[in-house]
């Protein structure tokens, strides 16, 4: 899962990025509204954290431009302002949720995961297929109720496939959603991650559609 953080305060942006990356998410940071809009329109993000008080273009303008341009990425707005008018402006412009500063990072992390899950149309935060379960809140993977250790990249691949279960996902799409903007996007390494997952979780969890991609079928 790939997130865009639009936050002009470097320290706060870094804190959010570190927490989300530790959650197994790929994170890009835009320090102003202009870059945020450019990235939102050109990269396939799974959700976006958008500070309202951005330089160059404020958050509301970025959001309106995104929606006007047909970008439907779920947006969580960050606001330091007290008044409801700002929050309602954001929600009315197409945001899906808001968090006010100062916030607890755990709350932000939970909101991000919940938004990604809702956007994928999944009500249950725990995904299950065969004997494998994946808790999207903790990234905990179990095989027959036994915890399995996965690398961050393996978790990212598994999380994306579970969130999009029932749908064929190409290697390119997978690489776009598990690597950040400046990451090394070698789609061939995706096959390596999938093979490792099969070894750890069983060969029938992830199906390969030759020449087209991968799919986890009928996940709960």
């Amino acid at each position, binding site marked *: 899962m790939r997130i865009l953080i639009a936050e002009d305060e470097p320290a706060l942006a870094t804190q959010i990025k570190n927490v989300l990356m530790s959650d197994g998410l790929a994170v890009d940071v835009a320090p102003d509204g202009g870059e945020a809009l450019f990235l939102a329109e050109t990269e396939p993000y799974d959700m976006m954290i958008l500070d309202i008080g951005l330089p160059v273009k404020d958050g509301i303008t970025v959001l309106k431009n995104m929606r006007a341009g047909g970008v439907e990425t779920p947006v969580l707005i960050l606001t330091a302002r*007290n008044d409801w008018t700002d929050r309602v402006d954001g*929600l009315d412009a197409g945001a899906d949720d808001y968090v006010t500063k100062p916030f607890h990072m*755990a709350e932000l992390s939970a909101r991000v995961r919940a938004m990604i899950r809702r956007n994928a149309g999944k009500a249950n935060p725990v995904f299950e297929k065969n004997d494998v379960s994946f808790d999207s809140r903790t990234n905990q993977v179990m095989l027959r109720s036994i915890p399995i250790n996965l690398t961050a990249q393996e978790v990212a691949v598994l999380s994306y496939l579970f969130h999009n279960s029932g749908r064929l996902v190409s290697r390119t799409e997978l690489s776009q959603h598990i690597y950040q903007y400046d990451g090394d996007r070698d789609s061939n390494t995706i096959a390596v991650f999938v093979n490792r997952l099969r070894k750890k979780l069983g060969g029938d969890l992830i199906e390969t559609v030759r020449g087209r991609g991968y799919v986890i079928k009928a996940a709960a």
Partner: protein
Amino acid sequence: MTSLRTRALAGGVLWGLITIVLGLVGLASYLNSQSDARFDALLQTRHTQALVAVANNATFPDSLGRAIGDPIYQRPFSGQYWQIQSADGQLFVSPSLVDTLLPQADPAQTDLVRRDVAGPADDLVLSISQWLTLDDGSRWHVQVASSYDALDQETALLRRSLFSAFGIVSIIGLIGALALVRAVLRPLDALRAEVAARWEHEDGLDPQDYPIEVAPLVTDINSLLERNRETLRSSRRQAADLAHAIKTPSAIMRNELSRLESEGLAVGDAVEALDRLDAQLKRSFARMRADGTDASISTFTDLDDALGRMQRAFTALARNSDKVFAADVTPDLRVRMDKSDLEEVIGNLLDNALKWSRGRFEMSATLTDEPAILMCIEDDGDGIPDGDLGLATLGGQRLDSSKPGTGLGLAIASDLIHAYGGTIHLARSKKLGGLAAYVRLPVPGGPKLDMSESSLGAAPEKPA
């Protein structure tokens, strides 16, 4: 300070009274002098008539009564008298004297004498008398007198006529003054109405629509309105910028503390201090907003627009929490409250309802008979125990700490509602079973709301 209308009216009436009194005194004095002169001249004429009669009838003085033939001398105590005395003391009098006499002649008198003397029945009369010496050497004292009664009656009649005339003039003048004041003040009345009606518009008032004397005032009011708007905008912008400037570092510190805590360091005191700081900041910003509210300025908000925005926003937020939000707002309602302040009130109340509801919360807005706007936000949560309902609108009262929050939402809403002369009443929702917050706010141009205990103590009835 006394109103312009009162000043203009009082000034006009006072000036009118002075004019009328001076005119009345002057005119009465002039007419009195005219009456006196006419009275005097008439008596002089009567004296001359008597002199002529004596000159022509000295030989037969008994015929003097016929020679001075005015019938008024025949009527007893008619007020007109004559008395003629010969040098040897023989008296001839008018029948009107009946059995009385005018004062006797003074033999030493030489010139014509005009004097007030006691007449018949102690009636004061003006007497003119003179010794007349005829060609045959005989001397006659000729005296005529006229009662002041006639003059007094004429003066009284004249005074009554004058008072009546000036009374009518006064009434006409007063009506005229009222009409004049109304006409003169009409542009100011129109100005007041337009200032109230156009406050929320940015285009201001056109000085050319007003008389040249009022136009500079209109220009000043335009400047004042714009300055007030700018001051309000500026103070809110500064508060928002300040909030942004403080809260972002606060968020960074909180996250650093959280990281240190996860590494096993004891940072509980620092986190608690930061919590207190954040709560105090939120309270202070809310107070700044309430203090910056100028409810005396006539402003209004279209509920279709404001509540429509809130409805869309909270429908999205409810969906995130797998809850249902419903709104029932009567169309075309307007409330006398600034839009951002109204959104602050409704936002806080709906946020509470969203947080505490089990699965459903609702918002409604209707017009009451008062007239007032009655808004109700209710949920299907546990509500607040009856004994704690009064505490809920006090700042910092977290009646249930099981969910995050500062306990300021209801207090902020309450402060703003009261700043605009409205009321908030908390009760148990009859429909959903949780908390129901009833908000009454005045309509534009409507009366002040009833703030009596009876109106505050009971849940308002929502019109069907």
